[in-house]
């Protein structure tokens, strides 16, 4: 049994859970506060730097915002269900679609992917934590602070109302006089810090903290896709940072950036937004590609077809994704040369995406398919994303795109790729990894309901939008009238009603998922160690994993290392036969358990530092002295942070344990 030398439960007054774990008392005060020591209860979550706890916190936050964003969507659909809808007025409708998109993109899909990445990336590469655990905690608190700031606007005179891409000069104080856009810009700025720090952290983790033997081309595919996404974030976030600063300066300090009367070019905002915004699209969908690339092989009982092609096509998507941003601006009068260049680049990016779809299909080809809920969602993704991808190709043709711009056809397209792509992948991940995270399996029967209601609901909601869009219904129009709805098959009223019914079915599907969570949480049945007969390293530990992840760090010899420890090829028949059970593999690891494992210690500073940021944001909007107070809170936190070592110093440990120089530290640095 490994001894984790970190602040044990309580101090010496409380008997430690593991009798051999030495009690730790913070000997020194760093900055102003002693180290937090709780390992259970709410404090252990608030001050944690454990990547798994942070992953769950990311997930819970994202799920909360998913529900908020979903309710906003339902309100939109109720408004449009019948002619001259009265559910929302025009102003509230503008806020609703803006916040629906903002919430879903920045506060659900991105943090949910960050949650999965946080939880599973270190496990998949055989690490005990990320490279900078405190920065990791700081990132989560920034995300939460950002999400709160964006949504606070609802209570301070109305939320942002300029659409999620907030085009200038419409986002200026003249056309959007409430403080909604200010909250939006500053909130996203804070959430952006989470993405940037997370990107640096995870890239360093992947490059530096892989288990011995795990070369880059032996990394699980989910880790690969997350790595590509982190590079996209690393380089895309600063661009939106610039754009948001310009917007904030314009709105709060009367700068001229988007003031057309002063000679400004509103296209500047569009360029900055989409230079960020197009990589963002891949930031949203690549994690889900990674998830289903894990799920499909497991439930096809075959290795992933063409692993290097999936890796390199992912990287290619990430790279080409930088050269296509202006296809969002074909209708803005860029000029024929620009349009032709970006049109070609956009067609090119369909190629690596197609490569992935072929690989997934061939992974399933000839496999012994097991249709668990996770697998259903994965297959659902392939089909729905392909539909969305095909309508995407029609956008790349500029003349056709000019007709489609700002119609419901666009809405249909991006919901097929984002709902059918990103969100289906995330749900696949829920069902696949739930036993790993919570030690219990989500109910498959409820899961089936969840899946089918979501598939039917999503196709009923977004399918008709293709027709609505090609008939010319503009997006963001808050009412439609019977007089202009058209007749017969193309009657707008009929298809709007169908879409609204679909959104209710979709909501029911999500409701089944929430019920499933509750039912599973109440169930007493523990998940088996290796419920899916999985292939990658994150399954080579207990459910849920111990705080230090692995008793001993595994030496990796294969892609799909866990599978290769369980199965060997029979030399005569050339079939795979089981040589060890998951339990035996784990027992083997435990036998060589490291004696001393130094985990990074909890800290107050990440949450204190992040808490200063919303104060600064509110100060910028309402009163500069408040911003200064926020700044002082942050300075204080940085001061405490800088003086506090990432790992509790030897003096905090018992004399006996600080001699353990043969132990493995987590490899985490000052962060």
């Amino acid at each position, binding site marked *: 049994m490994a001894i984790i030398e970190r602040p044990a439960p309580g101090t010496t007054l409380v008997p430690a859970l593991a009798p051999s774990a030495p009690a730790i008392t913070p000997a020194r005060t760093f900055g102003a506060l002693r180290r937090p020591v709780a390992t259970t209860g709410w404090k252990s979550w608030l001050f944690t730097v454990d990547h798994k706890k942070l992953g769950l916190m990311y997930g819970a936050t994202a799920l909360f915002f998913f529900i908020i964003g979903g309710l906003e969507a339902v309100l939109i659909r109720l408004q449009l269900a019948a002619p001259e809808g009265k559910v929302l007025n025009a102003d509230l409708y503008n806020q609703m679609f803006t916040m629906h998109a903002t919430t879903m993109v920045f506060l659900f899909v991105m943090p949910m992917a960050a949650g999965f990445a946080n939880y599973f990336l270190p496990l998949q590469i055989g690490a005990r934590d990320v*490279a*900078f655990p405190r920065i990791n905690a700081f990132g989560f608190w920034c995300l939460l602070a950002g999400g709160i700031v964006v949504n606070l606007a609802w209570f301070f005179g109305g939320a942002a109302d300029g659409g999620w891409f907030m085009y200038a000069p419409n986002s200026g104080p003249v056309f959007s006089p409430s403080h909604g856009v200010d909250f939006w810009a500053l909130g996203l700025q804070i959430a952006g810090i989470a993405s*940037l720090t997370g*990107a*640096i*952290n995870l*890239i*360093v983790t992947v*490059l*530096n*903290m*892989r288990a011995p033997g*795990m070369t880059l081309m032996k990394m699980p595919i989910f880790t690969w896709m997350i790595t590509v996404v982190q590079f996209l974030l*690393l*380089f*895309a*976030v*600063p*661009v939106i*940072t*610039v*754009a948001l*600063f*310009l917007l904030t*300066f*314009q709105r709060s*300090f*009367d*700068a*001229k*950036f988007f*003031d057309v*009367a*002063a*000679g*400004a*070019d509103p296209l*500047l905002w569009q360029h*900055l937004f989409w230079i960020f915004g197009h990589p963002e699209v891949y930031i949203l969908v690549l994690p889900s590609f990674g998830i289903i690339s894990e799920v499909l092989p497991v439930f096809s009982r075959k290795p992933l077809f063409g692993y290097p092609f999936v890796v390199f096509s992912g990287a290619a998507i990430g790279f080409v994704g930088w050269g296509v941003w202006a296809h969002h601006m074909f209708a803005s009068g860029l000029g024929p040369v620009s349009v032709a260049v970006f049109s070609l680049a956009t067609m090119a990016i369909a190629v690596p995406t197609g490569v992935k779809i072929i690989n997934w299909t061939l992974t399933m080809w000839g496999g012994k398919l097991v249709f668990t809920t996770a697998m259903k969602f994965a297959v659902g993704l392939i089909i729905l994303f392909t539909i969305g991808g095909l309508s995407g190709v029609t956008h790349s043709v500029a003349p056709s795109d000019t007709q489609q711009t700002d119609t419901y056809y666009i809405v249909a397209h991006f919901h097929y790729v984002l709902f059918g792509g990103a969100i289906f992948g995330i749900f696949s991940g829920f069902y696949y990894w739930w036993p790993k995270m919570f030690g219990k399996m989500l109910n498959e029967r409820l899961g089936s309901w969840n899946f089918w209601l979501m598939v039917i609901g999503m196709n009923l909601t977004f399918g008709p939008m293709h027709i609505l869009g090609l008939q010319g219904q503009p997006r963001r129009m808050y009412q439609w009238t019977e007089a202009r709805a058209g007749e017969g098959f193309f009657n707008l009223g009929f298809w709007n009603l169908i879409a609204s019914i679909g959104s209710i079915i979709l909501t029911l599907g999500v409701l089944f998922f929430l019920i499933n969570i509750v039912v599973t949480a109440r169930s007493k049945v523990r998940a088996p160690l290796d419920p899916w007969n999985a292939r990658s390293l994150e399954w080579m530990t207990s459910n849920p994993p111990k705080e230090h992840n692995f008793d001993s760090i595994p030496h990796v010899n294969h892609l799909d290392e866990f599978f290769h420890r369980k199965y060997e090829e029979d030399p005569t028949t050339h079939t795979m036969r089981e040589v060890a059970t998951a339990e035996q593999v784990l027992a083997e690891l435990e036998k060589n358990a490291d004696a001393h494992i*130094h985990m990074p210690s909890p800290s107050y500073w990440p949450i204190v530092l992040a808490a200063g940021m919303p104060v600064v944001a509110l100060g910028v909007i309402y009163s500069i002295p408040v911003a200064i107070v926020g700044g002082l809170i942050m300075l204080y936190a940085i001061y405490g942070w*800088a003086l506090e*070592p*990432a*790992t*509790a*110093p*030897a003096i905090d*440990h018992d004399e006996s344990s*600080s001699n353990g*120089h043969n*132990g*493995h*530290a987590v*490899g*985490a*640095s*000052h*962060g």
Partner: protein
Amino acid sequence: MADTAVAHEGHTSSTGISNVKLGMWLFLGSECLLFGGLISTYMLYRGRVSNGPTPEQVYDIPFTSVSSFVLLMSSLTMVLAVSAAAKKDDRGTNLWLVVTALLGATFVGGQVYEFTAFYNEGLGFTTSLFGSSFYTLTGFHGVHVTVGIIMLMALVAINKRSRVPGSKAETVEMIGLYWHFVDIVWIIIFTLVYLIPV
């Protein structure tokens, strides 16, 4: 960077390079896109003067040349600090860090003077697109220099309390990287903003 024995042992890194240094380079790569955006905004808007003075009317090239030269030389003193820290020469490190901070402060002081002079000549933050984008770009750079000065002074304070010579060598190197980056951004700004006329 962590100054305990515990943090050092078993420093297992797949690439053999330090986490902090890799993280710093990633951060600097990211900063390229931040300053790129600000510089592009300035380049697009520098000639758009609907109101107030034009760049040629306010820029004082001899003055800015001197402050640019000061910042450039602070890169030399910074690299000497890094070099001294690597040799575990704490006295030399502290000396060069202080000199670097002073040169940086001279630069920031020059910028404050420049902003005041421009403002008095009629170029405010809200005067024109040129004014907004000029102050935003150079202001962002100035904030970066100021953060660098604070880090340098904090480092000197920590270094003086440290009992192990050279224990902060990696921190000195990291802050050095940041400092040089701020310098190279100014190399670009000096040419694109000041020397090339509209």
